[in-house]
């Protein structure tokens, strides 16, 4: 890599940080000092901002790095997994879980998922449990993001910036930026960055496609025979469905995504977002993942520890352009982490600190605490990213499955009037225990039938856990009676059509 392209990459990253800080300062000025405004931008996000902040939060680094790497190694069928997962399934979950949560949030003022459930079942313990389970999976996931960003910065500068300094710099930046700006600033930068990502992906795609189409084999020649046929290799029906279902459901319970269910400014915003979602999916993933598949077909080798899209771009486009994409991806990684920090902090202050430590904390104090929470969360994750304990890394890499386990009890709580508190505890604790056992425990089979295993006849354990969650929550709810504290009518009244 030439010196000028290193300077350009670093320049783009620094420019991104400065723009983000400027946006954060503007956001700080228009945000009043209340928790609802800090965490949820006063439930005032419009269509464009909501769409891109959810999109950028959800998919950023995966789109440029991990996703195309999968297409390079195993074929472009992952595009279909994305279509089912994000185009259709997440869209429907956005409506069925998201819209209902939005209605409840509007009428009852909820800021977090735990708060919403705790109120319905009159249980502080349930509220705390949902927050604790979420933070358990979120914390190591943030750590992985920091490790990724730190390593990317090392790669970007050719080792001139050591790993600890790279990860530390990014942590410091995020603490300052998220601490100042809150949801409004985070959402605004996400929007800028989402538009930038979409533009640059298409520029890269058209550039590479034109080059390949003009070569002797043409576009068809750039797809290996195995990649043309649908399925084969790792792509079995069970595998594709497990990935799509597990991730789509898991995403809805990720704090930074779930909290976005609360922030739309109007029903109209939700309607538009719902309909545009599949278009964004096709616009972003088809070009990004095809580049990965083509790289395999034209015979570009992937060096150990690198990502295929930058390698491909280095082959076909000038250095400055490849640098722009890499820097954009790094910015994308940061924009995912900042949302996670903000949500992690809100779960901690609202569902753990306030109910269990200081119930009388004023709104003003909670606002300050939320910002301090961001710093504590980020610095602890930074510590983790330096020490890299193996078990924590594994928790982070299986986080989607862990979050997915929350979905069946939560959906039942919102839709099924006869769900009881005992049913909720059984559903949450039972599935978390089951999933953790399949990740960390030994494989147990009984007469050839897997009992505790990572795969059940090709289906992943997190999908089996979803069924278990339904059975446990419904079963235990059916044999228990509601406490006097439980109030199913809270939801029914709030959801009545006008």
């Amino acid at each position: 890599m030439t010196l000028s392209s290193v300077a350009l990459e670093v320049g783009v990253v620094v420019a991104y940080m400065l723009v983000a800080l400027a946006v954060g300062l503007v956001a700080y000025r228009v945000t009043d000092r209340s928790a609802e405004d800090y965490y949820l931008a006063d439930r005032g996000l419009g269509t464009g901002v909501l769409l891109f902040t959810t999109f950028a939060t959800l998919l950023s680094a995966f789109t440029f790095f991990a996703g195309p790497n999968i297409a390079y190694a195993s074929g472009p069928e992952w595009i279909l997994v994305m279509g089912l997962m994000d185009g259709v399934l997440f869209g429907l979950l956005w409506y069925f879980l998201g819209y209902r949560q939005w209605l409840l949030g509007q009428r009852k003022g909820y800021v977090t998922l735990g708060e919403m459930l705790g109120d319905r079942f009159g249980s502080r313990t349930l509220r705390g449990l949902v927050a604790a389970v979420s933070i358990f999976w979120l914390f190591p996931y943030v750590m992985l993001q920091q490790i990724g960003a730190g390593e990317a910065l090392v790669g970007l500068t050719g080792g001139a910036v050591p790993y600890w300094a790279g990860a530390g710099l990014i942590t410091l930046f995020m603490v300052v930026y998220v601490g100042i700006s809150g949801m409004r600033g985070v959402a605004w930068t996400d929007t800028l960055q989402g538009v930038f990502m979409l533009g640059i992906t298409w520029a890269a795609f058209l550039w590479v496609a034109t080059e390949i189409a003009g070569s002797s084999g043409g576009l068809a020649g750039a797809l290996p025979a195995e990649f043309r046929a649908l399925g084969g290799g790792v792509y079995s029906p069970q595998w594709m469905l497990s990935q799509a279902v597990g991730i789509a459901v898991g995403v809805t319970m990720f704090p930074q995504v779930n909290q976005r269910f609360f922030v739309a400014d109007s029903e109209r915003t939700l309607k538009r977002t719902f309909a545009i979602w599949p278009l964004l999916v096709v616009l972003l993933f088809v070009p990004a993942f095809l580049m990965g598949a083509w790289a395999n077909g034209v015979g570009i080798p992937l060096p150990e520890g690198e990502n295929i899209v930058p390698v491909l771009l280095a082959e076909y486009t000038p250095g400055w352009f490849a640098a722009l994409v890499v820097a954009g991806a790094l910015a994308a990684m940061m924009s995912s982490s900042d949302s996670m920090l903000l949500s992690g902090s809100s779960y901690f202050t609202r569902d753990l600190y306030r109910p269990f430590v200081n119930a009388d904390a004023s709104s003003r104090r909670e606002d300050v605490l939320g910002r301090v929470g961001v710093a504590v969360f980020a610095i602890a994750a930074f510590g983790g990213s330096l020490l890299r304990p193996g078990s924590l890394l594994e928790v982070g890499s299986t986080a989607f499955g862990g979050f997915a386990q929350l979905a069946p009890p939560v959906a039942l709580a919102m839709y099924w009037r006869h769900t009881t508190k005992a049913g909720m505890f059984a559903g949450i604790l039972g599935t978390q225990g089951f999933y953790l056992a399949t990740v960390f425990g030994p494989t147990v089979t009984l007469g050839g039938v897997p009992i505790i295993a990572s795969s059940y006849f090709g289906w992943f354990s997190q999908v089996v856990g979803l069924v278990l969650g339904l059975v446990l929550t419904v079963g235990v709810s059916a044999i228990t009676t509601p406490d006097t504290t439980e109030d199913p009518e809270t939801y029914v009244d709030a959801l009545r059509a006008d």
Partner: protein
Amino acid sequence: MVSRIALAWAASFLLLLAFAVPWFLWRNDALFAGLPVWLWWHVAWMLVTAAVFAAFARRDWGLFVEVGR
């Protein structure tokens, strides 16, 4: 009683889910304009999904989710 409109929408949603992956093209390796036919199906299916979602949002938004409609 479940209304006919609700049933029609539920069936449409299930259909959108069922054919997001074109199972009937499994192991098919035909190309069109240099790209697999199943990839073109994906592009078309996402457009169909967006159109169905938009129609639902315009006509029957609130169905299944709001209580009492």
